[in-house]
């Protein structure tokens, strides 16, 4: 492959889609808000639920509880044990996935029209009556511990976690949300129940439904699915205060290629400068092969397979982050080039041509996001959780196109801080 596909936080701005996508804001009889797109050409529905809070809601001393709890949601519910549940799900050819990150717990489901009610009843049982039985806890705990041990020897993971710890300190963002071997080993069933109560609640859920289901059906469907959830969960965590010192820190690890993660403070999504910053990042290190970092580090010098930067927006912190991997004897040069490019961009900004290219790339790529019911459902919850208006889609490209050269270059001067760009390098780098 010429380049690794990169998902990253692209959806932050690329959220939306085709203007023709007709989103309905439905309030269920039970009072839930659902964004719904009716699409009957294929007989299935994609449902996306996102609960705000995620692993940052771990109680003090219980790191890893929410991650382990999430892994257990598909390991038995109501009268079904793990295998009986999996057999029931497979027999319906439904798919449910449960995923948790720093800020959200996401449930993505796909189910056929022909057995929708049975599939939803099964999904409901995992959200309302998960068993968390001891045998499942021990089995999944062993899997999580195995994963933690593997991560501890993976240079990319070490780099990401070390960088997070360095900038976020004691905030939950600063530690691995899988927990440590010690913290996960110590978790009890009560801790899992507390993690469940903290995370899965009606006051923090965002809902997207796309597919073969009518507007009249959506309300009762979601009330049945989520009506019995508790009204509230744990209070949301405090904001983080990411700190940057501009230094390069090395973490020795015996491996041939060093992995570097770098960053500085970012731009909040709701800040008036966000769109300009997003466009600026496309030219700096986002998008495809055309960014300055790709051009200088890879295309001209062959120092890496990939170098990227992106605006990482978390609920409680905004960071302008990036990564690069380069052989131990070349990574120092790669880092020097990145620092130079960061400074050059801060000082002189982009050219009119670069701004135009970034705009046409972003506005043209916009409709490509809407490539299926599942991706659209994902976008709908993303829009809601970011607080976007339902008509945002129709205005989004105008907002991109409204950014001027003066504005983007002012944003480059004011927001890029080359002297604060901090690197964490894992490997055996020479000359650092």
């Amino acid at each position, binding site marked *: 492959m010429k380049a690794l596909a990169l998902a990253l936080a692209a959806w932050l701005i690329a959220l939306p889609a085709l203007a023709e996508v007709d989103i309905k804001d439905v309030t269920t009889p039970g009072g839930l808000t659902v964004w719904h797109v009716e699409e009957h050409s294929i007989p299935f529905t994609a449902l996306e639920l996102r609960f705000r809070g995620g692993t940052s809601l771990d109680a003090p001393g219980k790191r890893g509880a929410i991650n382990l709890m999430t892994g257990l949601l598909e390991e038995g519910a109501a009268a079904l044990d793990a295998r009986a549940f999996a057999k029931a799900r497979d027999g319906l050819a439904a798919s449910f996935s449960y995923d948790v990150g720093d800020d959200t717990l996401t449930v993505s489901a796909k189910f056929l029209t022909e057995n929708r009610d049975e599939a939803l009843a099964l999904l409901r049982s995992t959200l309302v009556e998960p068993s968390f039985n001891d045998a499942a806890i021990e089995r999944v705990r062993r899997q999580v511990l195995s994963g933690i041990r593997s991560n501890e020897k993976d240079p990319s993971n070490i780099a990401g976690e070390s960088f997070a710890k360095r900038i976020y300190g004691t905030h939950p963002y600063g530690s691995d949300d899988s927990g440590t071997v010690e913290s996960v080993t110590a978790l009890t069933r009560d801790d899992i129940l507390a993690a469940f109560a903290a995370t899965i609640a009606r006051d923090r859920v965002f809902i997207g439904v796309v597919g073969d289901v009518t507007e009249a059906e959506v309300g009762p469907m979601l009330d049945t699915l989520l009506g019995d959830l508790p009204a509230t969960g744990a209070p949301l965590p405090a904001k983080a205060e990411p700190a940057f010192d501009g230094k390069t820190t090395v973490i020795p690890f015996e491996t041939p290629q060093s992995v570097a993660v770098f960053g500085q403070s970012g731009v909040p999504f709701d800040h008036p400068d966000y769109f300009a910053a997003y466009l600026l990042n496309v030219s700096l290190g986002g998008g495809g092969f055309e960014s300055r970092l790709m051009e200088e580090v890879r295309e001209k010098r062959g120092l890496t397979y990939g170098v990227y930067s992106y605006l990482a927006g978390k609920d409680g912190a905004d960071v302008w982050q990036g990564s690069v991997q380069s052989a131990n004897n070349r990574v120092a040069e790669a880092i020097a080039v990145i620092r130079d490019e960061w400074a050059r961009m801060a000082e002189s900004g982009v050219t009119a041509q670069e701004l135009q290219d970034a705009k046409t790339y972003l506005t043209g790529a916009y409709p490509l996001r809407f490539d299926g019911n*599942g991706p659209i459902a994902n976008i709908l919850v993303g829009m809601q959780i970011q607080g976007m208006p339902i008509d945002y889609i129709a205005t989004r490209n105008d907002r991109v196109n409204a950014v001027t050269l003066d504005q983007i270059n002012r944003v480059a001067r004011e927001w890029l801080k080359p002297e604060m760009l901090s690197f964490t390098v894992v490997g055996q780098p020479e000359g650092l």
Partner: protein
Amino acid sequence: MRAFVTSLLSLLILSLPAQAATNDHVSTFTLDNGMKVVVIEDHRAPVVTHMVWYRAGSADEWPGTSGVAHFLEHLLFKGTDKLASGEFSATVARNGGGDNAFTSYDYTAYYQRVAADRLELMMSMESDRMVNLRLSEEDILTEREVIIEERNQRTENSPGALFNEQKRAAQYLNHRYGVPVIGWRHEMEALDLDAALAYYKRFYAPNNAILVVAGDVAPDAVKALADKYYGVLPANPELGKRARPSEPPQTAERRMVFRDARVAQPYVSRTYLAPERDSGAQKQAAALTLLAELLGGGTTSYMAEKLQFETQQAVYTASYYDGDALDDTSFSLIMVPTEGVSLADAEKALDDVLKSYVERGVDKEALKRIKMQLRASQIYARDDVSALANLYGQALAIGLTVDDVQTWPEVLQSITAEDIIAAAKSVFKVEKSVTGYLMTPDGDAS
């Protein structure tokens, strides 16, 4: 609990294989110069996926030039007579699209995803670089550094990837499936302009290529554009039949221990040489596809039931079969033992489970569930037209036909419990197997 799977082993993809839907809206035709064309219509969004597949991958390389197929793939993003280096991707991006390429053992493919009204521009550029590539010495030197960094990233930094590379090399005694797609490092370092151009001139021609266009397009319009841009290119008369070294009888069991200080979670893996899908004769591959699901395809599989739930000797188990290959492929099994279980004990437990499965026969309910999932996957597949484009492109690149793709779901549904056990018996032959232990430097392999 699925996250674990991806963190440990990316080689085993635990999902049912993609299938064509019966209602694909697929048209096919062949240009005068021999280039095959597949058009898949999906008018839900004004988007198109444009792909060109070459029936040439790393297994078609000459000995001593491993990695050249993939190296050339990178170099196709350099200049042509009409485009400066980098201008291809820059033009796609300026038109709001994304582009990339990938190389495998049996094929190399290039694709763009872009607004449907830009299809002509994509064809104009893609057809240009099929024949008009212009490379400089400098392109070669810089890009060679890039692919070596790619090898560092994918392989050298990962003990699991290094282990897999050694296992494949042991599995194939003669076929070039035993050589990594990215290339052996010492041969990559010596790749030059001549090697890249020799491969290009031999394999990059319309009569060795497949065009797949999927999305908001009409077959007639695609035909007209394809004639205009690809149809005018001359066929390569020297292409010849695709013939590669084949495997001799495999008569000796192979065993290996790979040690690395970066290993955190030891495991045992077993692969067997296995037949691939053949045009018009897909039953054996279909039976093996179902076998892999029943044996190690997830929570309800036999290996999970015995080793993860009952004896709890494993934290994770899986089996995997990929029949989408031109020549003999492999059937793989993996077992990640619970802490305190040695790899030797894990291997014995794995062997016991295989033996008991073949003796006990297929669980009829389990087979029924999987067939239901396969039927449903045809519905879900219609939601992702890019995946359908891949499905057809890959199939045609490995010698299958559109008919093979479209009858595959029926073939899968026709497989009986007896077919599956017969397939298992024919594949699980120790003399055709490689057993590998991945472990720490001081781990006990006895």
